[in-house]
């Protein structure tokens, strides 16, 4: 079968000493930064992105993917050990994982998280290898109208599945789209919203927006409540789960993987919803449901496998369609563009080594995390205990150096400071930065596809509705939106996220 030839090509690409080394460095750095409380995968990738600019594309993407899994993984470690989930997807892991840690079973909780994640990662690598090619095939038949509608669907889905106010998420998307248009209009060559500044004629770098909003803005918010941030941890021992633990892990891991895989494909689903969903499901079906919230191993295995499955499956829309499902994928797309690769269905046919190398490296990265992280747990514990007062200036330093190194322009550093302010203000108003970043990435693409679609239809906007696939996607987006606005559904949605 083809898939084996493809995976073989992928393994050949990803198993070169250089790529293995960078996968390892990525996993290591990702975990190291991911365990630091308050730094999730998006901020970690944004911070480390500039380090990959000089690398060949495959190596850069493999390292970034490694950083992504590593940061995700590190977030779980922090959630379990100190009850400080760095990102939404490890919030539920903290519920039972931290209880286990308080009962002296921290080692077993960490091992459970690692094994469940690894299992989910393995399954999802195979799923991606199976489903990405046919999807890319379909996507190649898409015209501009389909692409435009798909992006609308993606943006709507990303807010339906996220949490927080729908209205503000919509507002942030539109604002992101607008910010993305700053720069030179490709068709007319006119400068839009550049204030005649040459620095803005190429538009604003998305790394600047991401680092400003996720990095700097977050730091100000953290400093405001810094008293509650200091941490102390018990010693971690007894890593290996018992036979009975294993028996209790199997079914939740399988269910978590399945649920996470399904939710992960949906745009905007990604890891957060998957882990919430899996936890809720286990709580309903588990025989040990009375133990939930008091240190049930199922409460760690299920969300961790789901979270990893969801995170990995979110590569599918990115790889096949060039559409980001979450901010991390938006950053990956940005990285590809910087490397001169136009993300989309053609990547698979034009750059098979890159495509399959990245997929194969996913499994390798998961394996590395398993063997790298458990023995090094003592080191991660030390990292968690670094006081925040040492940490935050360093984070700003890395952000500033990273942004400066993009173009060697101090203007970019000023812009990052500005987006830091914007990020903080919006955070205070409960407006999430993630939809803004998605809109920011998609803005120029949406304009281009809409322009082409309307050009082909001679200005008739009905083209979006007369082409069946396009109409179907718009209808789906409308249904999703209607669902969230219906009172009964919003109640369930609130419940799903209330445990935060």
């Amino acid at each position, binding site marked *: 079968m083809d898939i084996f030839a493809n995976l073989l090509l992928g393994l050949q690409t990803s198993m070169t000493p250089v790529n293995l080394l960078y996968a390892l460095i990525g996993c290591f750095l990702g975990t190291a930064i991911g365990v630091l409380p308050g730094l999730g995968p998006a901020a970690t990738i944004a911070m480390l992105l500039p380090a990959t600019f000089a690398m060949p594309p495959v190596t850069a993407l493999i390292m970034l993917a490694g950083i992504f899994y590593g940061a995700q993984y590190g977030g779980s470690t922090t959630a379990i050990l100190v009850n400080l989930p760095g990102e939404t997807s490890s919030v539920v892991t903290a519920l039972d994982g931290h209880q286990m840690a308080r009962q002296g079973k921290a080692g077993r909780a960490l091992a459970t998280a690692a094994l469940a994640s690894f299992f989910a990662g393995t399954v999802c690598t195979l799923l991606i290898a199976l489903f990405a090619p046919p999807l890319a095939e379909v996507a190649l038949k898409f015209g501009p109208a389909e692409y435009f509608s798909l992006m609308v669907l993606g943006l709507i889905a990303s807010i339906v599945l996220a949490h927080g106010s729908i209205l*503000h998420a919509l507002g942030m998307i539109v604002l992101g789209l607008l910010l993305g248009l700053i720069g030179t209009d490709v068709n007319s060559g006119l400068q839009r919203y550049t204030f005649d500044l040459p620095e803005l004629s190429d538009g604003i770098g998305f790394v600047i927006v991401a680092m400003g909003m996720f990095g700097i803005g977050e730091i100000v918010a953290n400093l405001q409540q810094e008293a509650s941030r200091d941490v102390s941890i018990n010693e971690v021992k007894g890593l290996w789960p018992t036979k009975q633990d294993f028996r209790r892990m199997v079914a939740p891991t399988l269910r978590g993987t399945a649920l996470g895989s399904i939710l992960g494909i949906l745009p905007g689903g990604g890891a957060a919803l998957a882990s919430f969903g899996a936890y809720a499901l286990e709580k309903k079906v588990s025989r040990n449901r009375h133990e939930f919230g008091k240190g049930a191993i199922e409460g760690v295995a299920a969300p961790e496998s789901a979270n990893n499955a969801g995170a990995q499956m979110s590569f599918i829309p990115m790889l096949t369609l060039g559409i980001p499902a979450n901010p991390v994928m938006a950053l990956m797309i940005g990285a590809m563009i910087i490397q001169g690769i136009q993300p989309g269905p053609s990547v698979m046919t034009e750059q098979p080594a890159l495509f399959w190398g990245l997929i194969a490296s996913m499994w390798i990265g998961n394996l590395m995390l398993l063997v790298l992280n458990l023995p090094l747990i003592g080191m991660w514990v030390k990292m968690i205990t670094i006081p925040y007062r040492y940490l935050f200036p360093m984070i*700003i330093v890395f952000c500033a150096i990273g942004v400066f190194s993009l173009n060697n322009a101090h203007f970019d550093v000023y812009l990052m400071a500005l987006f830091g302010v914007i990020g903080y203000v919006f955070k205070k108003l409960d*407006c999430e930065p993630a939809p803004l970043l998605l809109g920011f990435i998609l803005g120029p693409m949406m304009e281009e596809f809409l322009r082409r679609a309307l050009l082909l239809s001679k200005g008739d906007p009905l083209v979006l509705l007369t082409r069946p696939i396009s109409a179907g996607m718009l209808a789906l987006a409308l249904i999703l939106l209607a669902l969230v606005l219906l009172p009964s559904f919003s109640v369930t949605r609130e419940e799903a996220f209330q445990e935060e």
Partner: protein
Amino acid sequence: MIRVRAEKDFWAGLLYVLLAAAFLWLGRDLKMGAASRMGPGYFPLTLSWILGAFGVISIVRSFVAQGSPVGRIAWKQLGLITAAVMAFGFLIDTAGLVFALPALVIISALASQQSVYDFKSLLVLVGLTVFCILVFVKGLGVPMPILGSWFEHAAVIAPQR
């Protein structure tokens, strides 16, 4: 008596309206064009109107729906962190990394009540500066001046840019 119930909705809505107005005003010279030949203004101006509409809805809602207050704004932290980043941006070319980095660290550290100024923190600062020079400038080859343009005449110590 009408009053704002959901403060966050109100301010977010106002922000959307103001930003939409700014985008409309700044884009006032962009041609709309026709749908079949979209001008440079077509997409941004349409989006600005949509953003403004969301803003108005949010403001209206803030009078009806219940919501939480905005809470205290951390002006001091916000100002200091922003100033620290700006100082880095200003000093990196002129004074060079050896000055820009400590300036960033020292100004931003003022934002935390828990910062301590002792020998150990000084060591951390020196260590961090050396680390960044070794890793970013020497290791990764980021073209950052270790000493900036202010020192160009001191040819003995200034590295060539």
